[in-house]
Structures are given as C-alpha cells and as structure tokens.
C-alpha cells in the first residue's frame, strides 16, 4: 500500500477475490452513516470496476449502463 502503513505483515497465503462472491458487511454493533455506505459503494466499484470508476464518480449517468449491463464474469475475465 501507499503510503506505507505504520505496521504491516503479509504471508504468501492468497485468497481469490471475486466480484460475485465478495461483499462488504457492516458489523451489527458498528456505528454507521451515509458516509460509510457511500464509501463502501465507492470502493466496491474502485476494486472491481477501476477502469470506469472515475467516469462513474464524475458523471454517473454516462457509466451506469456500462457497469449495470456488463455481466460480472466478463469484468472478472478482464
């Protein structure tokens, strides 16, 4: 990551990350608000649709079809 975190430890153990199998969960006991839900929505798009993300946040109408219409697996292949 950039900037370098204060403390980070990783191992070679990998996990696959698949747009159809992954989701964000807000813990029941967690505080929540509009900022969190919009951040989760944003980062889901940033992680799985990086190529159209910027257009989406700057002009959602122009991209929403692309994201909506694209079957997840195609994007995954990408």
């Amino acid at each position, binding site marked *: 990551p950039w900037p370098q975190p204060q403390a980070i430890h990783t191992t070679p153990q990998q996990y696959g990350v698949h747009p159809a199998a992954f989701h964000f969960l807000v813990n029941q006991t967690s505080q929540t608000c509009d900022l969190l839900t919009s951040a989760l929505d944003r980062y889901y798009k940033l992680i799985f649709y990086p*190529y159209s993300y910027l257009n989406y946040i700057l002009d959602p109408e122009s991209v929403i079809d692309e994201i909506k219409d694209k079957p997840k697996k195609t994007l995954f292949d990408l």
Partner: protein
Amino acid sequence: RDTPLLKRLNVYIQEPCEQYPTLESDESYTIVVTSDSAVLEAVSIWGAIRGLETFSHLIYPDDNLGLAINQTTIIDFPRFQHRGLLLDTSRHFISIKTLKINLEAMSNSKMNVFHFHIVDDQSFPYESRSFPDLSGAGAYNQDHVYSQEDIASLIEFARQRGIRVVVEFDSPGHTQSWGRVIDILTHCYSGGKPNNEFGPMDPSRNSTFNFLKKMFSEVATVFPDHYVHLGGDEVDFDCWRSNPDVQAFMKQMGFGNDYSLLEQYYMQKVVDIVGSTGKGYAVWQEIIDNNVTVKADTVVEVWKDPYPDELARVTKLGYRTLLSTCWYLNYISYGKDWVNYYKCDPHNFAGTDAQKKLVVGGEACMWGEFIDATNVITTTWPRAATVAERLWSAANVTDPNAATPRLEEHRCRYLRRGIPAAPVNGPSYCDFEFNR
C-alpha cells in the same frame, strides 16, 4: 480451484460518525485478512475510509485468480494530522471536474486537506453572494467562476473522502483582482498625484474593514471547516508609502516610517474579524514574522528557506506549524525530483519535543503560473504522493530506493483508476497504460 475466496470484509466503526473531518480527527484503523472473512476496524468514519483505501491497495490482479489478496495484518495511523495539497485557481482557472479528480487522487494517497487557493492578483473566480461584482469584474470571464453550487459540490465530494477544504482569501497583498469594482485597494501616487495603479488593501479606511467583515462572515458560512487561510504573505509597502492618506494614518497611529507596523495593524484587524466569526485561521509565516498577535490555535505555514531555521523559530513562539517550503511541486525539473521531496522532513529542525509536537504536518503546493486543467494532474501526481508518504508513514520510512518500486506500483494503480499520473522513475511501463 483449491485457493479459498475472500467472501467479505467486516467493517466496524467505534464512534458515531462526525459530519466533517477536522484537524483533530482520528484516522487510525486495523485490517486483518486471515480467512475468507476479513475485518476492518476503526475508531471513526475517517479511519474506516482510510482503511478502505488501503484494502483496495491490497487487492491485485493475478493471472490465475483474476483478483487476489494475501493474508495480511495492518495496524495504521498517520504520523501527521494535516497532510495537504494547495492548488492555485487564480493564475489559471481549473474546472470543478478536474478539482474533483485531484481530490480523488489525494484520497488514493490519504491526503486529507485541500488548500483551496481560490483567488489572487490575477483573477477572482469565487462567486460571492454578498459581492457578486467581485467575480463579475474580477474573474477572467463569466465562465471562469466557481458558483456557490460548484463550491458546495466540491466540499461534499471532499467530505465523502475525509478531505477538509481550507479556503484561502489572501490579503492585504495579492488582491489586485478584488479591487476592480469595490474601492478597497490603496491608490498609488506618483509626484503627488494618483497614478491609476493600486496596491495592497487600504488599511487607512474603515470601509476596507467593513467590506472584509461582510466578506469573511459569508466565507465562514460557505466553508464548513474550522480554519480559513488568511494568507498575509509578500506585502509590498511602496504603494502605501506613496499615498498621502496612508501617510497621514501612519502619523495618526504613531507608526513613524515602519510600514510593517501598518501590516501588523491590518492583519490584527483581519484576524480579529475572522476570529469573531468563530473560525480559526491559518496564515503564511510573514504574519508571525511581523509580530501580529494571533489566536493560540492559529496554524502557521512555513514556506521560506532554510526551513529548519524557520520551523524552529515559529514553533519556539508556540504556534502549530505546517511545512511547505520543500514541497513547491510547481518547480519542475528533469528526472527523479521526487527524491528530494521524499527526503524533506517536518521534524528536521533543532527543537524540543514540545516544539516538534507543534508541527501538525505539511502541504505540497502547486502554484498555477504554468498549470491549468491540461497538466495539473500529471504534474502533481504521483509526485505529491511522495509528500503524502512523508506525512503519513513512520519517520524511519525514508529510503527512496525501497520506495521506488512501490511508487511505480502506486502510479500504475492511478492509471488503472483513470488518473493520468506521470512517469517519475525513468523508463518503465504499467500493465494498464493511460489511454483516455
């Protein structure tokens, strides 16, 4: 087939969400990815947003898995609270859309203060509610303006990313564009007659301060951040010296021929005006150099060299301080100029621990003499990201050789995300090149 899938990221925030980030916000978080269910914990919403950014960095393209993440544990928090970027929208106008792309790039590097240097001598693009003529006559033209809706949408876009918008209305100098319709500037004289030139704001007239009172009470309502940047840098005294009313005022005030006392008087009035709105203020270091008495929570921005001496002097006076001296990114040169930015450190000065604690961070500055929407992103990024690492990461993260491959990867990440970050490490490539 035998590699497990990561199925979820459990997010947990401890405290109720604040509406806006502040200088005191807690941005710490932890991330644990050790099974098909990862966990992100944060004290505040701002830490959660920083953690989500890091989480998005942990996921990478993998030939077999498509996208992958490694088993990871992260404990993270910023070294400095104020990690800013100044953009100057007066010397060249920059569209709101480009300003938002810059905010996006800032959040990808965890920068958290947008220093909106919105007006200056050259143009006044801020559409004021109280004084619409200021941009009517002061903007380059009627398209090169920021409406109240533009400003509000920029502030919201920044808030969503945990970025504070600290606006700068610099005075008494750098105000030529203010005076095109409202008579607040000093009339300069030659040979005992007005010469149709104008200087800094005219401190000898009460009308100047009546205007400023109205203007800053508007600014206080439009910009939610606790701090307004009042500038106060580079005041030229020649015009003041030439004006007979100002000369009379100097005599009346007993300032003799010391015009820095007049500058001090002006800034004292302005900080009192802004202080009465309940706002805090940031100022360039000249205000302190000229012994203006400011509120204890004032933030002083150091831009002069040698910065170690300047930091030592300002923190010795007990003010919270920002460093920007070594991060004027508008000075461009051929080659890896980011290494010098990376080596600069806000604690690199002789001072007590108490003085070091007064340094709350720093800012990368992109002045607009030769910068507009065509090159602001490519010139600023990823070079500003090296300032972001200096201000976020531990003090011992200083090796530019170790940083080089990581900066390359971060640049490629920007390209993947549609942000045209320029090459800064010589010949190389990214799997996904910019091709907008």
